[in-house]
């Protein structure tokens, strides 16, 4: 309990103080970061001491808000703290006090989502998080940012309305809002009322969480906004919806549905990333694609599968933030990569891009390899295995295409703009695989590092590279098809997705 209190209150006070005394905004934010770090460490020490813990906030008995401390919580809270540090050293006081205020508020809300184990508390924190992130998207007041923010606002408000309807249905039958309490009342046996309610809640969370068909606001919002905002949104803000899905998936068995959604999300995101030709757009679509793995992990239903999903959530936040920061610091985020010879990047950005891309392609010693192999070990259906192979191949294709343009073809800028903070972040991302070792232990690690996995994960990027060499001409001819993710299309695809969920849930 004290962990949540320390983290959230220090972030909130850092936000308010950096708005009032904007001269010292960087130092206040640093103090906020220390508070978040202390909060996370308190959570870790409590977890190590007494294992997973579900408790009530306040002294209101059954009306108290349920909070939880388990591996998912700690990984997400840790992700918030780490991304806070990354973006702080990248920013180094370049923005105004208002930006720091909103930035700290965003961190406070995402930090509290990690601990939330109550359906209505999830609603409030996620809604607050999206309001703050919309303000951050439109921070530079460019018209396209305002438009992307408005689209996100309308879709997320609609989504949360659907969530509230579902919550009403679940509350009517279950009689409480705490997820632990509900799980005890329902005990796995769900009537059609509960199924419909969970279905609506899942739709709402999927819009927040970057699931394909549901959150088509994402490519615009993540690619039009400022670099730091993109990194934070892609790295942690969309994960709040996924945390919600992890929590809700404990109530009824959603396994098959989440597997289907995960495979669809992963493959479709990779295809759209391959068709885009602006680095930030590619990275935004790649976020959708990576969400697919997390859904697959939740869909396996085992505790190791959930751990794999949480680990993937953590690692994805790290390397995606690194990729966004390195593209943004070179200011090439909106250029066309088909004409990459005209571009120039400082060496720091190239290093950051390199480390980020070997991580995203899951090449063995880097972090994503461990979460992905842990996930593969949990999958016991053949088609899921093939879907994962397809997603991996797609990831390799678009990453190598981006790398070829920005690392090999683009010139190295020797005059300036080199930003050493990118190298520090890249180093941290490169070393983060030690964290997998700390969490999983040596025995599990040795099992994950076996021969089959190593061969498979080295072969996938190689095959991808060869395919790219063969298709290069055709790809650049095919690229840049204009697919309008307009508000209307996004809304229609949201309801298509809702119908798909409904059909799958009632057919199985």
């Amino acid at each position: 309990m004290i962990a949540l209190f320390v983290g959230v209150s220090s972030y909130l006070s850092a936000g308010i103080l950096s708005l009032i005394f904007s001269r010292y905004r960087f130092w206040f934010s640093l103090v906020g970061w220390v508070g978040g770090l202390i909060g996370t460490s308190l959570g870790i020490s409590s977890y190590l001491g007494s294992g997973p813990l579900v408790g009530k906030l306040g002294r209101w008995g059954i009306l108290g808000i349920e909070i939880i401390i388990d591996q998912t919580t700690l990984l997400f809270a840790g992700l918030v703290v780490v991304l806070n540090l990354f973006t702080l050293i990248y920013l180094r006081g370049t923005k105004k006090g208002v930006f720091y205020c909103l930035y700290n508020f965003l961190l406070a809300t995402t930090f509290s989502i990690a601990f939330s184990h109550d359906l209505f508390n999830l609603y409030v924190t996620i809604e607050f998080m999206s309001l703050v992130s919309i303000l951050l998207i439109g921070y530079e007041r460019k018209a396209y940012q305002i438009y992307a923010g408005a689209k996100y606002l309308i879709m997320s408000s609609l989504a949360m309305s659907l969530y509230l309807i579902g919550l009403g249905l679940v509350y009517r039958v279950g009689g409480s809002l705490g997820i632990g309490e509900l799980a005890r009342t329902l005990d796995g046996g769900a009537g059609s009322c509960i199924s419909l309610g969970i279905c609506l809640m899942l739709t709402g969370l999927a819009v927040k969480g970057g699931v394909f068909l549901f959150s088509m606001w994402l490519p615009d919002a993540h690619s039009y906004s400022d670099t730091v905002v993109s990194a934070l949104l892609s790295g942690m803000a969309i994960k709040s919806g996924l945390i919600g899905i992890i929590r809700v998936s404990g109530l009824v068995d959603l396994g098959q549905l989440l597997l289907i959604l995960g495979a669809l999300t992963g493959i479709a995101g990779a295809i759209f990333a391959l068709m885009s030709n602006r680095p930030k757009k590619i990275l935004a679509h790649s976020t959708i694609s990576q969400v697919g793995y997390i859904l697959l992990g939740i869909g396996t239903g085992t505790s190791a599968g959930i751990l794999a999903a949480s680990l993937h959530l953590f690692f994805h936040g790290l390397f995606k933030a690194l990729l966004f920061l390195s593209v943004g610091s070179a200011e090439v985020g909106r250029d066309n990569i088909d004409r990459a010879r005209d571009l120039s990047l400082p060496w720091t950005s190239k290093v950051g891009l390199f480390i980020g891309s070997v991580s995203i392609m899951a090449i063995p010693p880097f972090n994503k390899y461990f979460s992905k192999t842990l996930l593969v070990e949990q999958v016991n259906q053949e088609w899921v295995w093939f879907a994962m192979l397809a997603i991996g191949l797609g990831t390799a294709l678009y990453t190598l295409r981006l790398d070829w343009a920005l690392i090999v073809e683009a010139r190295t800028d020797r005059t300036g703009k080199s930003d050493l903070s990118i190298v520090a972040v890249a180093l941290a991302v490169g070393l983060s695989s030690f964290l997998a070792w700390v969490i999983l232990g040596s025995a599990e690690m040795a099992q994950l590092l076996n021969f089959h996995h190593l061969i498979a994960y080295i072969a996938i990027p190689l095959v991808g590279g060869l395919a790219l060499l063969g298709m290069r001409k055709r790809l650049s001819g095919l690229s840049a098809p204009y697919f309008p993710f307009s508000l209307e299309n996004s809304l229609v695809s949201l309801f298509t997705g809702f119908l798909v969920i409904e059909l799958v849930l009632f057919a199985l």
Partner: protein
Amino acid sequence: MSTGLLASAISVVIVCIGVLGLILKRNLLMKLLSLNIVNTATILFFVLIVYNPGDRAPIDPTPGVQYADPLPQALVLTSIVINFGVLALSLLFTMVLVKRYHTLDLIKIEDFVRREFEEEKS
């Protein structure tokens, strides 16, 4: 079927009307109004689905009387406040867009936005 369930079915119909308006109207302001209809109908739904005819207000602690559940009211108040915030923010964004492009037609705005994004050098 109890009165509460029937009434909540009607509120679902209102949600559907709002959603249709949200998808079919081209005017941005109309879209926001439809969104507000959806949000309000959601609140109506939430109030009605836990409504039980004959329950007393939970302020008078006489023993032996059936009291209404106080929790949904607290939840609904919170979500009304959130919806107010969302509406205010979306109207602000609409104002900025209208000032910039002098139109409320969403298709035109999307066209302008895309062109502006691609022409502006990063």
